[in-house]
């Protein structure tokens, strides 16, 4: 049963990734693209967690944690650049 649930979940999360990628390409404004990147990294965390359950390995959480931290820093840096024209003042 777990395997069927995992297959359905992988399909749904991959569809979510494709939808965010579409928004990243289409735009139309800069904040839309930043929001799409934000959603992409959160979806990647979901995909890594599912992969950890499928392969029974706890190693993937280090990667998920790193992506969570770097993604947040990237979002904040891009927003700061659009807001102030500079990242570190």
């Amino acid at each position, binding site marked *: 049963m777990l395997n069927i649930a995992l297959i359905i979940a*992988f399909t749904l999360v991959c569809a979510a990734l494709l939808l965010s990628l579409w928004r990243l390409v289409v735009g139309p*404004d800069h904040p839309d693209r930043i929001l799409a990147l934000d959603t992409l990294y959160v979806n990647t965390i979901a995909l890594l967690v599912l992969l950890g359950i499928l392969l029974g390995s706890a190693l993937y959480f280090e990667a998920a944690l790193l992506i969570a931290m770097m993604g947040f820093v990237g*979002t904040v840096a891009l927003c700061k650049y659009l807001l102030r024209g500079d990242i570190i003042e």
Partner: protein
Amino acid sequence: MLELAISALIIVGAAFTFIGSLGLARLGDFYTRLHGPTKATTLGVGALLIASVTFFSTRGEGISLHEVLVTVFLFITAPVSAHLLAKTALHLRVHSIAPTPAQVEVADGAQAGETSR
């Protein structure tokens, strides 16, 4: 029984993640699009991480707490980045489908007229 609970959590989490991205792709303007990823997707990933905690804690190797770190980090940073994104959109005057309230528009017009004079 346990497998059923983990499977249900995984399905619910993946469904919420998908609904969040669907909102991002389908909704009308930036301010409504902001709702999908920041609420639905965060909840979905939270459910997936609870499923992962249950799965790794019941394998007989002690309680697994890595996931709690990811969950806490995600639940703290999602509102912060949503706030920054909304501030950026307001700063760049991104188009909104909701009409501006008439009073605000009048006040804005008066202010703009004063400064231009």
